[in-house]
């Protein structure tokens, strides 16, 4: 299996301060990588640095191309879909228009319509809310919409920032089930940042533990699940 996303010695931050200090990690093609860490460890900054939303320097290669100095719009067009924290809903647009925005760079109209139907298959709730203004959807529905919008890009890599944040356990289960399906059946690789370490480690094959802007620990997800420090600090048993 090849490497889809490779990051080495990444520094990134806001203003004059660096939040990330030399982070390295990778996502294999078809794999699921998760980044764990406490609040303020730099998880969100890491995802933002990968897709060019914050100032960064270092080595970032995606799908064989150097992207560390590319602008966000171009990185996205290479097939990297980012579901931002806070979901990034276009609140004044309808549910359907939100999905169309996700596919706005695509020219294959027929396939877009098919994908739209596929998204409504994954998330029947969105089909019910098709014409509704997206800002009036519930938190769970907006999270589903954000994931569906990202998938409308037909990405090679799906980047998710805390998809379980603030959602009911049943909705979270649903979302994780769909991520697994998307990964297995559509061969979409996933980079997942998550506070819910137990769920994330169940889903992922590779895991990294971020502490104050540096990778403290990394390895196979199964190994991290059994690691004493991870268990004590992040899994709570």
């Amino acid at each position, binding site marked *: 299996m090849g490497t889809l996303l490779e990051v080495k010695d990444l520094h990134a931050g806001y203003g004059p301060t660096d939040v990330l200090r030399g982070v390295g990690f990778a996502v294999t093609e078809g794999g699921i990588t998760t980044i764990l860490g406490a609040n303020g460890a730099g998880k969100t900054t890491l995802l933002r640095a990968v*897709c060019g*939303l914050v100032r960064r320097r270092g080595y970032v290669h995606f799908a064989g191309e150097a992207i560390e100095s590319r602008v*966000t*719009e171009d990185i*996205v*067009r290479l097939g990297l*879909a*980012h579901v*931002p924290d806070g979901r*990034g*809903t*276009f*609140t*004044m*647009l309808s549910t359907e*228009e939100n999905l*169309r*925005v*996700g596919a*706005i*760079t695509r020219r294959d109209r027929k396939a877009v319509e098919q994908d739209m139907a596929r998204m409504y298959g994954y998330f029947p709730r969105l089909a019910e809310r098709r014409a509704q203004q997206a800002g009036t959807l519930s938190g769970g529905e907006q999270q589903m919409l954000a994931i569906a*919008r990202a998938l409308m*890009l037909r990405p090679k890599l799906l980047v998710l920032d805390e998809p379980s944040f603030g959602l009911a356990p049943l909705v979270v289960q649903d979302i994780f089930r769909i991520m697994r399906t998307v990964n297995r059946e559509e061969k979409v690789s996933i980079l997942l940042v998550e506070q819910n370490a137990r769920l994330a480690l169940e889903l992922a094959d590779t895991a990294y533990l971020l502490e104050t802007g540096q990778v403290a620990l990394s390895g196979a997800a199964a190994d991290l699940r059994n690691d004493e420090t991870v268990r004590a600090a992040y899994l709570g048993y």
Partner: protein
Amino acid sequence: MEAFLHQLFSGLATGGIYAALALALVMIYQSTHHINFAQGEMAMFSTYLAWTFIDAGVPYWIAFVATVGVSFVLGVIIERVVVRPVEHAPVLSVVIVFIALLVILNSVAGWIYSYTIKTFPSPFEWEAVRNPYLAPHEIGTVGVTVVVLLLLYAFFRYTSLGLAMRAAAQNPVSSRLAGIRVGWMLALGWGLAAAIGAIAGMMIAPVVYLDPNMMSGIMLYAFAAALLGGIDNPIGAVIGGFVVGVVENLAGAYVVGTELKLTVALVLIIGVLLFKPSGLFGRRYVTRV
């Protein structure tokens, strides 16, 4: 009664102009949260361009299309060259930039074309539609405004570029994450606003005549219209435009007299800001502090 209806209809005709200009203001406000104070002078300048074409013997409608096209390009260039560098500047700096743009366009127009008032032709000189209620030019103006508004609606509602522009105005970060080139969408918005202004200028010039200060009064009504409808609501701005046009005309004819008509706009602006700052159709924003 006939006189009243005449005032009402001609109010709708000028209201269409205010509606178009208010819409241009709203389009830029929605995406940048700035009021383009130079909107009127941009429209005035475009109208002079049209006059130049027509004066050189170009047929009216060809000059019309050419003016709209050139204005669009100029609008894009203004965004790229003048507005872009102050993108992150404090709001007062941006206001100063817009006012500078206003003064510069005004002076350059005066310098090139002189401050002498010029007549501007109307393409609507149909004898067949003479009637007591509406002059042919007023009917034409209403027609042109309605066509422009419908085209804009269709563009924003049904095209992929229109959707991208709406998305970029609402949520720039999410739009970039969908691959939309947000900077270009803003520039396109300026181009569209300039093009709409050009049309409004060409429609009003036969009425108010062409001179570098022709838009000052008109823009006051357009500001009033945009505020009345809700500065962030395009449909509200259009309705506001027609309402202001009618109110202005009726008040001028029956209440305050034509000399004091402009105060109607100021009263409307102050009234809206005092009693309903979000306008009739605007959204109210509540911020947690």
